[in-house]
């Protein structure tokens, strides 16, 4: 089969379906433990701090800071080649957990360590996938 090269598509599981459904609604959902109050990401069946199985989905603020980043100059595959140079970053959410994402909406060279960012959602056409990304906080 030929056609446009495909990106690395996230395939949701029973455990993560709620998260990806939230993304499609442009809501960033993370888990919060009803017992100890800690937030966690990625989704799991137990709280990694207190081991309770009383996790609830909560809508994250969508705000955070850049914990580290790189500017990718050689794409991982053909599907990402048109995006070069692009920023892959670790975002520390205000609620505590870290997640990987891309920083978008500015020149790659403008991204800096500790930069405040906020979530934006990117709908991937034709595959019913929406991916959370981050841009400089306004």
């Amino acid at each position, binding site marked *: 089969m030929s056609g446009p090269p495909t*990106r690395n598509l996230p*395939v949701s599981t029973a455990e993560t379906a709620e998260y990806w459904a939230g993304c499609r609604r442009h809501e960033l959902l993370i888990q919060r433990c009803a017992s100890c109050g800690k937030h966690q990401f990625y989704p799991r069946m137990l709280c990694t701090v207190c081991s309770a199985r009383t996790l609830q989905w909560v809508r994250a603020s969508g705000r955070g800071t850049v914990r580290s980043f*790189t500017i990718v100059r050689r794409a991982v*595959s053909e599907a*990402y080649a048109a995006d070069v140079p*692009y920023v892959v970053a670790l975002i520390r959410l205000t609620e505590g957990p870290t997640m990987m994402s891309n920083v978008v909406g500015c020149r790659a060279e403008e991204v800096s360590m500790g930069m405040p960012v906020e979530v934006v959602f990117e709908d991937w056409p034709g595959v019913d996938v929406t991916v959370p990304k981050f841009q400089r906080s306004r």
Partner: protein
Amino acid sequence: MPGTLRGRAAIVGAADTQVGVVPGVSATQLCVEAILRALADAGIDKSAVDGLVTCNSMAEPYLYHAEAMAEYLQIFPSYCVSVGAGGGTTFTALHQAASAIASGICHTVVIAMADSLRSGLSRERALAVQSSTGHPQFEAPYGAPVPGYYALIARAHMHEFGTTPEQLAAVAVSTRQHAARNPAAQMRTPITIEDVLNSRLIADPLHLLDCSLVSDGGAAVVVTSAERAADFPHRPVYLRGVGEGHGHEHISQARSLTSSAAADSGRRAYEMAGVGPRDIDFAQLYDCFTPVVLIELEDLGFCAKGEGGPFVASGCTGPGGSLPVNTHGGLLSHCHPGNPGSMFALTEAVLQLRGQAGERQLLKAELGLVHAQGGIMSSHSTVILGRERDS
């Protein structure tokens, strides 16, 4: 219980295949070639092998890799296992082999690893392998190539400790100086700091020459009990300490970007051996990317946290330095066929401790440390080897 394996096992055979670009030889052939050479070095027949430990090959994978190699050789071991901990697989395998010997499961274990990443993978397969790195839902969609994950670590180290691109480059330069003395190394032409900084950026701040090679090759060692080790032709190299540390699988879940579970594996190995970093004559460290060496030097206690950059820039890890690192040329310059990568650090350590390293033989090689890590600073294993069974 620390001390359990100290002085209990020894390496009595060690060998590499040809490495670098080795077309026309399959990954399976490289693995079997390594085994046959290691058996010859140990002076034993395949029928003496009752334990076999391998890792899977990307170019030619098997559902049960060690069993497939045993079948190929027509050997019928009582202990047979494939280990999968990325680059850390090598010394996790040695840990398991020594444990199997100490507990009496088997007596003579071959550890063999090989792959054909350079010649045995199509471009499509190679891209697919790279693309599948990272958590499939929470990392891979964002398109980081493997160097990109390590660039996150490099950037954090630079930000936290003021490490410079020149200091990262010094790792590659020092390693190449060692490789220039090793006829088997894939890349031997000397390079300068400027060469590294002028090579193209792959993922800021990492340049092409901050990244390890893509190679074909294999290596194997023969391990037996310390009691039986005297019956082999070469001077035994004794396992004095071994330890593991496992921090995470995915870099976005790392508790720290600038410290690693090498601190755990190193502490456990030192405790077992009853020695410290100052007792070590040389170190073979995992150098898939230059920043990894800085963090390992720090976490293994060779310099203070954050001082890895100045430590390497001072020249002390190069030939003639106070702590020669990667005397064979490492993954950056000798060869890097993927998961088997650290096997060459192990066989080099054996040669140095036997006094058989030729032009690059160190003047003092009584106690050596080898360290491997797999994933993205995920699983760590440290081994301390000595010329003597105990000190």
